């Protein structure tokens, strides 16, 4: 122990300990620290009295306010939901699609909520603007796999495509090459024919393939895509004569489609979204293709 010294700056004495030159002053604990501690302690006691706090045995103190976060949230959600139903949701639930679409005042909240729902649930696959991408259909286009009326769209959303719902839509483009139904030459022929239907730039040597391709199409493809290749919405088989392509339109892409087959997957939303939300989404998707 060293003798206590007086520090010139603070006027305090040191404790007399020195560690490698470090000394400590005997400054008492400032009063403000005690005041601060008392203040926070009071706050803590208040919390303990008002809210659920201390455990004892298999239970705990419930607090004077009878406050329970679960009830609070449940109530708040129910109240907000009720207000929304009263405001406009109830009308959307009750009216049919045509009536809602004819009512611009009602369509306004539908658009708002529809956009939000779409971006939170659908944009990951279909894109923020619903224009799709390779493997995921454009929902703003005029072409539909299953039909573009609001009712049909709602049904597609509810059950999904090749989804998990029992009544899901199922769609299957067969793998003609892999399963050896057609050989390479035959596939090249039918691909040339299909591409010619929508006036695509022919690949080298395609001119001679179109006629034999037409024959193959009639035998293998027409059952699903129809004689005129305009597709069949009962089966989700796309129209092959228009400009929209889910999987790409160059020779290689179409060849891959016919060789390997395709089986797009769209989740079944019926278990995750409420009927009202699905209705709103269908209305929203339907507005996207309307010319503006």
């Amino acid at each position, binding site marked *: 122990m060293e003798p206590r010294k007086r520090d010139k700056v603070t006027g305090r004495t040191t404790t007399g300990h020195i560690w*490698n030159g470090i000394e*400590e002053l005997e*400054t008492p604990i400032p009063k403000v620290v005690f005041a601060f501690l008392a203040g926070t302690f009071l706050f803590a006691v208040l919390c*303990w009295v008002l809210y659920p706090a201390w455990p004892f045995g298999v239970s705990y103190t419930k607090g004077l306010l009878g406050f329970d976060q679960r009830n609070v949230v449940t109530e708040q959600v129910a109240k907000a939901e009720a207000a*929304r139903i009263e405001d406009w949701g109830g009308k959307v639930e009750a009216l049919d699609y045509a009536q809602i679409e004819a009512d611009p005042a009602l369509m306004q909240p539908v658009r708002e909520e529809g956009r*939000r729902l779409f*971006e939170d649930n659908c944009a990951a696959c279909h894109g923020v603007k619903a224009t799709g991408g390779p493997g995921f259909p454009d929902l703003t286009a005029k072409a539909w796999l299953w039909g573009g009326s609001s009712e049909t769209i709602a049904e597609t959303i509810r059950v999904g495509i090749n989804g998990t719902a029992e009544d899901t839509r199922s769609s299957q483009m067969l793998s003609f090459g892999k399963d050896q139904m057609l050989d390479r030459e035959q596939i090249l022929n039918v691909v040339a024919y299909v591409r010619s239907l929508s006036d695509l730039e022919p690949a080298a040597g395609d001119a001679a393939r179109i006629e034999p391709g037409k024959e193959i199409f009639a035998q293998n493809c027409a059952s699903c895509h129809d004689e005129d290749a305009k597709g069949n919405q009962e089966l989700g088989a796309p129209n092959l004569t228009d400009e929209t392509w889910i999987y790409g339109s160059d020779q290689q892409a179409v060849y891959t489609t016919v060789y390997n087959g395709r089986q797009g997957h769209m989740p079944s939303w019926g278990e995750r979204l409420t009927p009202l939300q699905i209705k709103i989404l269908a209305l929203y998707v339907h507005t996207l293709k309307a010319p503006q």
Partner: protein
Amino acid sequence: MPQRADAAALSYRDCVSAKIKCLRYYRQQKKRVSRDRVSLLFMGDNDMISQLTSTERQYALVILVLMSLCGLVMAAGGRGDPLGVHGFVVLAFSVGLAFVLISGFYAPQPDPEQQTQYYDDPTKVGIALTMAWAVFGMFFGVWVASLLAWPDLTFDQAWSSFGRMRPVHTTGVIFGFGGNALIATSFHVLQRTSRARLSDQLSPWFVLFGFNLFCVLAVSGYFMGITQSKEYAEPEWYADIWLVIVWIVYFAIYLRTLARRKEPHIYVANWYYMAFILVVAVLHIVNNLAVPISFGSAKSYSLFSGVQDAMTQWWYGHNAVAFFLTAGFLGMMYYYLPKHAGRPIYSYRLSIISFWGITFFYMWAGSHHLHYTALPQWVQTLGMSFSAMLLVPSWASAGNALATLNGAWHKVRDDATLRFMMVAAVFYGIATFEGSFMAMRPVNALSHYTDWTVGHVHAGTLGWNSMIVFGAFYALVPWLWKRESMYSPKLVEVHFWLALAGAVVYVFAMWNSGIIQGLMWRTYTENGVLAYSFLDSVEAMHPYYIARAFGGLLFLTGTIICSYNIWMTVRAGKALATDNDAEGDIPVFARNAVQAGE
């Protein structure tokens, strides 16, 4: 007290013999200095090993052989599993060290005189490792920050995906940078404030290299996809077991050295360091209790599930902040700040009650990480109320540090080293205030899951932890290598402003983005529907993410400059001309000991 009595009885002969010893030491120091200059940072391998006694060399060899065997067993048992890869890592690490050891195995025995000096080699190597991890960890920090602004920067590789690189960053900085800094400084502070040499020469190396092996296993594991999915406790069971062994040895060094101390009292810095070691051991063991799916697999399942798992994890996570990132670093601050400022600690009592306050209150507060979750509400109320009281000892510590600077503010103005430490104390105060504020449930309802948390964390880690390490190192490096000053005081100044600017840009960017996010997620339109989709909020973050990446880049640049400056100080710094500093810097020769006639 007894020393004073002894001092009176000192004979003239004692004094003379002590003087001679001093002179001999002085000459030896000079020799060491010039040797250091040639052999740079690590001194030659032989030099490092020649400090070990021959028994220690034999023990070291046995340990390394055992570790190599462990590596072999892991490699064989874990064939076809990432565990096997880690077996080879352990094997390579141990065999590599064994080579170094064997190359100096028959070097001459250490001079018995070495017992009269402090043992600083592990601290020196620890400083080098700290800076290497700092650059590594912060580089990955800048990378993941950039990923959030420009998601394509993964180059389509699995190892460089966000989910794998984020823990590489956090482990790299918290454990690699922070952990090595704590180990390196704790060895230095422990010896100086106890006036005793470390208990032996082998165990400090075991702790330092063992800890770094843990860090290497952790980080290389993430790249391969190994994780327990517990934040800050990602490494799998075998790495966790290894860390427990290392940690026990670490604590033993502390106890054994303190038992040899020549000071009657234990300095407060050591209380903090010991709390850090002890509590981290407890946290680590409990949170990592798990059952491996087989001994040939890296994968394990936690003993906890559901909300118990979440609570255990955040009891761990919160107290890792408290005892790894706070208590240990407060220990650092309590030594280097008063020492460098040349001022006595403002209040001895304040430092003691803050120590116990922090230790006691922190333990209760972990549940503030789980507000509004499935965790029963009474646990949340306790977490919230104890977080409020926690602010008192936190601010008392920050205030004690700042008040210690009274009488040295002119130094703070002129000396960037001291300014680093001052700013660290200020950021510590800010981060703890913010933490207590965010622990209030209504505030947390806004801040939770947003970038605000990230901003808070970095006020702590950049502003407080990093700054105190930089300040401590700029003070410590010239002392250890016996240099007049850092190689370039100007670069210290440049580093200070880069670090401060980087931290401020980072924290402000995240406050902004966090609060905007929080508000966007709760804004409703007149029609009672949410006004924004999640994507809207992501889009709104973009400018702040760019700003954050920029702030991080500034900070990283400063760290690289710091590494360069330290390297050059060791290599080419001007050796201390007069040895008056070194004279006091030996365990048994300090004033009291001479008086005591050691």
